[in-house]
């Protein structure tokens, strides 16, 4: 475990090199909050409630959802694997005395831990700037479930991006597919609109998918909603993590023989 913690620490320190990136990442978190503030500000002019949301409840959801989706930074893993497989430099990961997938997990942990404090500060600033009467869950059990679910959601996203990266060995170019995936993920994780606004049958289908538990349900739990789904959510996302791991192993075994270290 110690070597992986060292990897995390290295990536944490590496973020300090890109200080301007950190500041601009913080500033650009405003775009989602501003979108929610202006759009829902217009909608709530004529209404008290939309679905189960009040205006401040809705904005609280967007603040938490934006904070969580900002923290989820694993999408770079698939492009890193894709680029390195194509130009032949993926061998770097084969000679490092660490499991490749665990290396990426540790890398993600380092980056997340570094950004955690900055993204939290940014969220607090936007709550203050937009004068949001923040709605937060009252029960510690629900908060604990949301935190566990967030961690499992991040693990799942690392696994997913790792798996998509491996698919380079099968499809050669996956850049277009990754962009389409990012568009879809923004919808099904509830980053654009809360999933609760979709018809019930759509939500029932989404509940079976892992993306529901990556940012949407943790954000709902932390803003005091959907408490009854907390434990079930942890079980489902946990199962998805196990399933994804099996898929990764099978894909690795099947496709990695194609890697010759010379690029595609």
């Amino acid at each position, binding site marked *: 475990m110690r070597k992986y913690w060292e990897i995390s620490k290295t990536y944490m320190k590496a973020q300090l090199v890109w200080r301007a990136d950190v500041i601009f990442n913080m500033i650009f978190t405003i775009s989602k909050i501003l979108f929610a503030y202006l759009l829902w500000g217009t*909608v709530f002019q004529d209404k008290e409630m939309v679905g189960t949301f009040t205006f401040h409840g809705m904005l609280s959801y967007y603040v938490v959802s934006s904070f969580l989706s900002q923290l989820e930074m694993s999408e770079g893993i698939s492009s890193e694997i894709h680029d390195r497989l194509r130009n032949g430099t993926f061998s770097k990961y084969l000679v490092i005395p660490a499991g490749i997938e665990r290396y990426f997990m540790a890398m993600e942990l380092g980056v997340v831990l570094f950004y955690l404090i900055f993204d939290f500060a940014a969220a607090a600033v936007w709550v203050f700037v937009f004068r949001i009467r923040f709605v937060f869950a009252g029960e510690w059990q629900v908060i604990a479930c949301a935190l566990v679910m967030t961690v499992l959601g991040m693990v799942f996203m690392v696994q997913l991006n790792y798996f998509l990266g491996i698919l380079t060995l099968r499809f050669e170019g996956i850049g*277009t597919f990754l962009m389409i995936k990012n568009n879809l993920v923004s919808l099904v994780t509830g980053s*654009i609109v809360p999933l609760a606004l979709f018809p019930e049958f759509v939500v029932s289908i989404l509940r079976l998918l892992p993306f529901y538990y990556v940012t949407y349900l943790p954000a709902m739990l932390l803003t005091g909603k959907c408490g009854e789904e907390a434990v079930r959510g942890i079980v489902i996302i946990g199962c998805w993590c196990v399933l994804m791991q099996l898929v990764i192993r099978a894909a690795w075994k099947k496709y990695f023989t194609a890697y010759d270290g010379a690029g595609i």
Partner: protein
Amino acid sequence: MSKKNWRVLRELFWLRFHGLTVFRFDFFAPFFVDGSLFLIQLLAFGAIYSNVDTIGSWGRGGMILYIGTFSLLNAVNMTVYFFGVTSIPHKVRSGELDLYLTKPVSPLFRLTFERISPGSVPLIVMSVCMISYGTASLDMTLSAARTVSYLFWLMLMEILYYEMEVIIRSVSLYVVSMARMEQLEEAGIDLCMKLPGIALYGVYKVIFYLLLPYGIMATLPVQRMIGEMSLRGALYGIGVVALFTVITYEVWKQGLKHYNSASS
């Protein structure tokens, strides 16, 4: 446009077409990526409109028309000039712009049209379908005069879209790194493609109607189509396009004077 420029344009198109058809999936990549993006917008606003009747003064039809209009502006951008204009910073940094300055054709003209993307044409078709669906949902009589003036505003806003893209890329002629400008552009477009100008007010209106006028790009054509455009709004729109035409011309012209070949 002179006869010589037409010939250059035709040659640039065929050169690009032959290059693109080498990678067939990548040929349609802009269609798949941007098509999924705008379909997701439709789904997201479908979810919102299943809970509210109007956003500001616009009902579901107005919003579909808005998304379709923004999609069409983006589709023409992707088809005609996006890949050419976005290559400017790289060409400045590498000194490749030298080649463009020595050719007997306007450098900006060649840069604009040399990377036409025929694979994005289906995006135009998809956008037209969205616009037709939006106008059908509005249940209004579509007169020839209204259609022509909508097309006029579309053309005007496409020019503005192009000018904004050129201004932002021309910054690379003055400074070493312009990644933040591109991030700013991305954030502005991302916000305004989801948020119609009618939801903007105060300082937000100043920002997105004047400083980064992405907020008027799809709003004004839609307002014209649904008969909400005032004379003041029309004059303002024409004034903004005229202002940005002058700015683009000056920024590009002065920028070329700053250009010092590969050392830029």
